[in-house]
Structures are given as C-alpha cells and as structure tokens.
C-alpha cells in the first residue's frame, strides 16, 4: 500500500537531488578555483533544498511517520531509487560538469512541465526548481564548452567524460509501471515529451564544445529499482555516517 506511484516518483526525484547534491558537496575544499568552490556548493545546496521538500512530502504520502531525515539517512542501499548517473564519482572537473549538464538539461524541462502537475505539492516544488535548473544548465554548459573547446588536454578529458557518462543518460527517460501510472494520473510529465528539448540543448552545447556523442546501442539502468553501481555503497557510508553513529542526532 505504501509504495504508491505518487510516493515512488516523489522518492525517486528526491533521491536524484540528494545524491547529486551530496556528490557536489564532496568538492568543498577541493574545487579548482574559489569561484567554482562557491558555485558547486550553491548548486549542491539547491539540490539538497529540493530533496528536503520532496522527502518531507514522500513521508506524508507514505503515512508511516518517516520524516525527511529518516528517508535521506536511514535506508539501505537497495532502497534508494536514484538514477545511476547521479551517483557516479566526481572524477575530474570535466566529469563533474558533464554529469551536471546531462542531469540539468533533462531536469530543467522536466520541472518546467511538472510545474503544471495535478499534484499541488509537486507543482510547487517544480516551479521553484525550474528557476534553479535554468542556471545549473547555464553554468555546466559554459564549462563544458570551455573545456571541450579549450586545450588539447581539456578537450580529451571532456570527451572522455562524455564517453563514460553518456551510457547513464538513457535511464532518465525510462518509464516503468509506477512511472507510467504517475504520468497517466498527471503527476509527472512523460520524459519522452522532453526528449526534443533535451536533445536540442545537448546538440547546441556539444557543437560549440567540439565534442561528439558516442554511438550507443543500449544504456545502463537499474537505479530506479534499487540496483546501484559499485560507487553507491561508498557514497552512503559517508552520507549516513553521522546518523548511523549517533542515531537520531538532530541539528
């Protein structure tokens, strides 16, 4: 009963935002320049803010008394439903920026469409997130262009990043049974309806960046069902450390 389509899609959106926000937070103290340090922390903060609203709402839908902290910190790895893309390690700066571009080029039109959701809370989260995603796209696009159309070394790294991460882009468009039910109920947009916008954003940025998309026959998937890559356990060990060590610690 608890895993209704509305609960599941809300949880997936929350997990995507939390895990990518956490990845960005790992750059704190390590970014290449001060401005970028602030930028990455800002982007991460937006995502964690979105995740908080979504977890709180998921807990209300579920009705079992789980709040945002319990959902964020006290689940097992196979209970996280984020896309595999967002848990991929930061790698070098090119990897971080290509990952951000793929995610935000998808989520910007997603939130724009979800702002018209029949679910008032999801619509409210999306109307705010759309504004934030707009500058996430802009920031990551500008960097991907600078790196791709930069030196021989930066071009090589940006192309390597794209080759490594592109197999994870397809999962964003995946529609399984609960997702289909949520689309039909008018809670979330059909990802297929966003494909043209996503493709156009990527094409414009990559052309400018002199980068090329690898040709793929299939894509990686499993995150939505809780089957993660080998990186997820390490990420959660760090993310959950405080709650596991000091259960119920609060700010």
């Amino acid at each position, binding site marked *: 009963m608890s895993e209704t389509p509305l609960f599941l899609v809300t949880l997936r959106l929350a997990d995507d935002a939390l895990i990518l926000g956490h990845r960005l937070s790992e750059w704190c103290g390590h970014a290449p320049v001060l*401005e970028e340090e602030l930028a990455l922390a800002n982007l991460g903060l*937006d995502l964690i*803010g979105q995740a908080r609203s979504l977890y709180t709402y998921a807990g209300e839908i579920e009705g079992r008394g789980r709040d945002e902290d319990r959902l964020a910190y006290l689940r097992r790895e196979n209970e996280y439903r984020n896309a595999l893309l967002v848990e991929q390690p930061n790698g070098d700066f090119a990897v971080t920026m290509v990952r951000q571009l793929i995610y935000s080029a998808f989520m*910007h039109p997603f939130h*724009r469409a979800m702002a018209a959701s029949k679910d008032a809370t999801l619509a*409210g989260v999306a109307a705010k997130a759309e*504004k934030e995603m*707009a500058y996430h796209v802009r*920031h990551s696009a500008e960097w991907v262009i600078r790196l791709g159309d930069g030196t021989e070394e930066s071009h090589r790294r940006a192309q390597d990043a794209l080759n490594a991460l592109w197999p994870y882009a397809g999962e964003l468009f995946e529609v399984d049974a609960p997702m289909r039910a949520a689309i039909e109920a008018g809670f979330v947009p059909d990802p297929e309806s966003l494909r043209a916008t996503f493709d156009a954003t990527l094409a414009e940025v990559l052309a400018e960046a002199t980068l090329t998309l690898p040709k793929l026959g299939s894509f990686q998937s499993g995150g939505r069902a809780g089957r993660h890559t080998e990186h997820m356990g390490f990420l959660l060990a760090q993310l959950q450390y405080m709650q596991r060590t000091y259960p119920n610690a609060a700010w």
Partner: protein
Amino acid sequence: MGVAVSLDLERQRAEAWAAAADVCDPEVPVLTIADLGVLRDVRIENGRVEAVITPTYSGCPAMNLIALNVEVALEEAGFTDVKVTTVLSPAWTTDWMSEEGKQKLAAFGIAPPKGKAGRRALFGEEVVACPRCGSADTQKVSEFGSTACKAHWRCRACAEPFDYFKCI
C-alpha cells in the same frame, strides 16, 4: 458589536503584520522579509496568529532562522499563540522585491535585481550598474556569490568587486 470585533481583529492583524514584517534577512540585514517578498501573509484565526513565508531558493539556509525570528517577533508583540508556515507556491521571484528594498540594497553596496525575471537557460549577458560608482562598465566574475541569491561582479571603472542580487 460585530463591527467593533472585526475592527479589533483588523487592528490586531495589522499589528501582527508589522511585527513580522520587521524581521530582517539574516544574510542581507538591510532588507526586511517584507521588502524581499518572503513574508506572504499574516492571518488570525481563533486567536492564533499564522505567518506565511516562502523561501527565495529551495536550499536557502536562512529559512529556519527567519521562521524562528518571526515567531519571536510575534511573541514580543504580545501574541501568545503563534505559528509560522512555509509555502513553496507561488514560487518566489525577485519581481516581488519592493522598490524601497531595491533602494536599500543599492545603498548597502549590493546591485539590486535588474528588470523582470526571465526563463532564459542558455547564454546571453546582462548589464548591471556598479552600486558604488554607477558605471555600466562592469563584468560578471561568477554567477555564484556569497549566498544563493547573489552573483559576484566587478566594476572596471572603479575596480571594486560587488555583489549583484540575481534576477530569478
């Protein structure tokens, strides 16, 4: 009798609004939450005062403190049954910032948001006047500044760095 009661309620509501509206943004202390458009509503029902606030950005870390400060301000104004509610919708926009708020920002050395919020995602540049010398010969250093709501700019005329309150 009925008229007197509703007038009394109206006066109480005005007092409660004034108390809540006086709370400052902890990150931009020259602006009140009313100047910012963060305070959306104050209502009184069955003796309980409810103040409704909305975050500027999803992850704005100042929201908890703002909510607490509103509660304290209302209690100091003599209201005992107080509640602060956070809403996300409609989404906050810099278009809600009062003219007075924009002037206070500029006087404080932060360039106020310029023009209307747009939906541009890719590329394009804004022209922002330096809050110190007024020159339009300025340059964006980074879209991300000391807080989520500000960008980092510099003026090429007076050579001073400055914050720009982003337009969203």
